[in-house]
Each structure stands twice: as C-alpha cells, then as structure tokens.
C-alpha cells in the first residue's frame, strides 16, 4: 500500500513520538525514503521541536528567583505565626 503526502503529514507528530503502529510506521518510512518534501517537513518539524525545548528560548528576568523566594519566605513566616497562635504559644 502506498500513501500520499497529505496522509503522511497527519502521521508526522506520532512518528516523531514513535507512537505509530508498526504497520503505519513502515508505510510512513517507505514514503519518506523517496519523498524529499515530506522528509524536509519531518526534519524541520523535529528541528523546531528540539529548538523550542531549549532552555535558552525563555529568559528569566533578573532577580526573579530572589523575589520569588522572598515572597515565599513571607508566606511561610506568616503561616508559622498562625500555627503558633493556633496552638496557643
């Protein structure tokens, strides 16, 4: 059985995740071997997924972590104070 490009595109995401059935995977692979357009679409999609996952894409604001932990410290402190009050200290 031969499948067309349009059908292959529908399988690309599952192909990248290696979650196709062995039969469908085989069909897709055979198509990719001779179709340069679908191969380029697959390669570009995979490349974009890898780039998107890279930690450098999203930059953290300077001081973000310090501000976060300072706010948490306040919350934790007031929580402790409440607990002390509740237990009658």
């Amino acid at each position, binding site marked *: 059985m031969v499948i067309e490009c349009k059908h292959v595109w529908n399988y690309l995401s599952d192909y990248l995740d290696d979650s196709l059935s062995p039969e469908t995977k085989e069909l897709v692979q055979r198509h990719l071997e001779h179709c340069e357009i679908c191969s380029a*679409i697959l390669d570009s999609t995979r*490349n974009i997924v890898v780039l998107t*996952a890279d930690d450098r894409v999203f930059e953290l*604001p300077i001081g973000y972590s310090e501000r976060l932990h300072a706010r948490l410290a306040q919350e934790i402190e007031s929580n402790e104070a409440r607990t002390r009050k509740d237990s009658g200290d």
Partner: protein
Amino acid sequence: MAITRRAHPETPEGAGLTGMNVEHPDRDEAQMIAAILAGDTRQYHELIRPYERSVYKMALSFMKNEPDAEDVAQEAFLKAFRKLADFRGQAKFSTWLISITLNEARSRLRRQSTVPMESLDQVTGEGGHISPALLRDWREVPSEALERKEIRAILVEAIGHLSPLYREVLLLRDVEEFSIEETATALTITPGTVKVRLHRARMMMQKELAPKLKNANPRRRWFQWS
C-alpha cells in the same frame, strides 16, 4: 515514555534540555512534602527550586509580558504552598504544580480581558487539516543559533501565536517533556485529544517557523590568509 528528541539517534540526547519532567534522582519529593506538611515549611523553598523556570515559562507564554508572568508564577507557587495538603500524590508534584499555574494564568487572563476565552465549541473544530510549509530540503538549525536574540524571539512569538489550547499542549509535551498521559492529566483532557492538539500545534509551528528559520544557519567562518 517515547520522547521526540530521544527517538532519533541524530539528536544528541537531552542536549540543552531542562524541562519540568526531568527526573531529579536525589530528591524524594513525597518525603519533602510530608516534612513540609508536618511543619518543616522552609523545605518548600527546596521543593520548588527545580520548577522555578518551568512555571515562569508557562506563565510567560500565556501572559506575554514579564511582569504579569512573574506575578502569575509567584501566585502559583503560593497557591501550591497553601494547598499542599490537598496534593494526594496520584500525579507527580510537577504535574499538579503546572495545573495550578495554568489555572492561575487562565483566570488572570479572564479577569484582564473582556474578550471571551476560547470556548469548548471551538475545540470541536479540531478536525480541520493543517498544511505544513513545503520545503525541498532542510538544513538543520543548530542549537547554537539560540545564542542569537532574534532567533529566540521568533520562537517565543510563534508559541504565542498558537491559541491557548494548542499552546498549553505544546508547552507541556515538547517544552516540559511531559508524557502524553501526564499532559492529559495536567489539562484534564483525554490522551487522544492531547495527540490531536499536539499534532496541530507542531504543524502550526512548522508552518510559521520553517520559512523564517530556513536561513538561520550561522554563517560559515572563513579564515583569511593574509
């Protein structure tokens, strides 16, 4: 769990990746949570440290500006602290935390905007076909290209262009490396819906980014003999 980047030998394993779902073998989170609930509340700082970046990324991709993203991230961590006793450990702490972050971002957006959020009716139109950008060949864009600000910016922009339903699936699965099942749990949708949305999200990203990234390869450096 089959992870995209690891299913292909030509991709260096885990290169540059620090998603939320990366295991921290030396940490016993269940034990840390038990200690916090028993009164050692300061341990919460350590519990959340590996997730600071991930929560901010989720928040930023929804809020699209840094101050709001930081507010949402802080609020999510505070809520998780206050509700820690509700965490039953059926899911991972990271999955639970990300659900809190998403809810916080969504409700903040709802409050900010008079434009209604996408309704579930629009989701049912997910059957439509998305054609990718057609190319004859693809020259791999190396991860070093991310040193360039404009490359980072077009990636962030493309994620921001996805509608929230697709963005959240893409972020959890491809950025945070959640499995299909974990993504489904965090978003309270079925694994089948995750797959459909992920496929569309990836195709939309390819369609927008491939033409822009095609020429992003760093120029070859030539040595001059003189």
